[in-house]
């Protein structure tokens, strides 16, 4: 008797998923544009070296300046010459360090880069938080009550196109030099787009959702809480994104003009006096990294847990998956 023809192997849908293979090329793909830019930078620096010297520093000098800005006080405290190279200093820190662990931390925490970054790092999110609370509240009031809509829309429409930096000199005169001025200007700059976006979100919510809730006899407050708020979340979040971007820009400008000592961009403008291009590049890089992380830490988790999960927004880069 002939054997029955072998069918396909038994189907097991519960088997663990295969992780798709990602080639090394795919993994480093996001890095290569940076490598290319650095390469071009190096060549340019090499050509300009005779002409400009450290005003157009080599990439290595920028890296070393970054290192110096972090470990400078520590290296000095150890009695090592600050002009020695990176490897000498690293070697000294690891193997020839006369200081105890606590002292090391103390000197590391004196690093100027850390202080610049920390100053920017609390001022900015703090101003942004104020702007978000006020912006969302005002936006909702505009969306819900015709009176406030009539009041705020003309005002905000005129204020929105004014770059926040233009306000900074006035703010300095009124509120003096210092954190308060930076915070006010930053918060004001990011409040405007947030309020506008929330207002749009509340106004353009899908009316059939409201009707559905009405048909189940939800009262106005319940509809607002359970339908309008979650339904306008995509617009609220995108408004906050724009708000954050504007806060970032305004904050950087205001820091420079408000006569404060610590802050990444305050540092950049200071460094201009000393022609310390390398410092400026380091600070700019930290600004970039910080802004990127803020976006990653603040928005992505919220979006993944809400509007992406609900299918109200495509994941960033989600267009790869379609076709």
């Amino acid at each position, binding site marked *: 008797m002939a054997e029955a023809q072998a069918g396909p192997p038994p189907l097991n849908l519960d088997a663990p998923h295969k992780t798709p293979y990602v080639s090394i090329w795919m993994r480093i793909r996001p890095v290569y544009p940076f490598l290319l830019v650095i390469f071009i930078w190096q060549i340019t620096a090499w050509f300009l070296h005779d002409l400009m010297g450290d005003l157009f520093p080599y990439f290595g000098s920028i890296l070393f300046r970054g290192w110096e800005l972090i470990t400078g006080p520590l290296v000095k405290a150890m009695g090592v010459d600050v002009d020695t190279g990176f490897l000498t200093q690293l070697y000294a820190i690891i193997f020839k360090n006369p200081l105890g662990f606590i002292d090391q931390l103390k000197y590391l925490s004196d690093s100027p880069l850390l202080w610049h970054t920390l100053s920017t790092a609390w001022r900015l999110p703090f101003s942004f938080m104020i702007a978000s609370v006020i912006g969302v509240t005002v936006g909702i009031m505009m969306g819900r009550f015709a009176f406030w809509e009539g009041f705020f829309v003309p005002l905000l429409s005129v204020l929105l196109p004014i770059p926040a930096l233009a306000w900074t000199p006035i703010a300095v005169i009124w509120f003096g030099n210092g954190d308060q001025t930076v915070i006010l200007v930053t918060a004001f700059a990011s409040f405007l787009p947030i309020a506008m976006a929330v207002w749009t979100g509340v106004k353009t919510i899908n009316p059939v959702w409201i009707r*559905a809730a*009405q048909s*189940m*006899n939800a009262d106005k407050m319940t509809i607002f809480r359970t339908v309008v708020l*979650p*339904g306008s979340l995509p617009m609220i979040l995108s408004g906050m994104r724009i708000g954050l971007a504007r806060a970032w820009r305004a904050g950087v400008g205001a820091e420079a003009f408000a006569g404060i000592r610590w802050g990444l961009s305050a540092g950049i403008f200071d460094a201009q006096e000393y022609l310390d291009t390398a410092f400026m590049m380091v600070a700019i890089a930290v600004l970039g990294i910080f802004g990127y992380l803020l976006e990653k830490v603040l928005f992505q988790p919220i979006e993944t847990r809400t509007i992406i999960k609900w299918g*109200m927004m495509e994941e960033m880069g989600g267009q790869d998956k379609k076709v």
Partner: protein
Amino acid sequence: MPTKIQIQNLRKVYDTPERKVHALENVNIDIQDGEFICLVGLSGCGKTTLLNILAGFVEITHGDVYMDGKPITEDYDKGVVFQEYALFPWLTAVQNVEYGMKIRNVPPDERKRIAMEFLRLVRLEEFADLFPHSLSGGMRQRVAVARALAFDPQVLLMDEPFGALDAQTREELQDLTVDVWQKTKKTVIYVTHNLAEAVFLGNRVVVFIPNPGRIREILTIDFPRPRDALAPEFIKTQRRINELIRDWK
């Protein structure tokens, strides 16, 4: 059978700044308790307006609507299924079904149990915890039907609920609708422009004609269920309704 809804001398005029639209004129229907009634007609004939009046979305210009002998109030219990996907995307299927009960302060355990019961009724209990965007169009409308029924409304209002679905899914959902209706014994008012659907589903079919929207005729459909959509008398009825809709002066 007692009369559930009584519509008397109903008139609706939409008064917009540009012009007045005479949407309904002299509409009279008595809807029995537990009846499945279909409203058909060309677009602009006022069938959706009538449904929106019953749903409380639109105010009456003139005339009366009685529910169990009393004038209807805005907040009587009605379940509405919309043509568009009206599920809340931020709630899972079962949370959507629970929504109406939540508003009526049904305790959480109870409301979860009832919601699952209605999801079973529309054969979706396995999909209870999925968000609407991962359900197909047909499945979404089934959840919408479950949501509209779960808080035990007095009437179920359906506005071309399956109009956006493909033909096979629509047929499947028509069968399901009849099944749900027979099990729950609700009064259903169903707006459609699909005549086969109306004859398949309804105990009675109300034929509307436009300008102004008014009732041309009310036909009683007494074919036994389950109905055969290809039977000669079924097609004959469909043809008759088609003539009523189109040939009027």
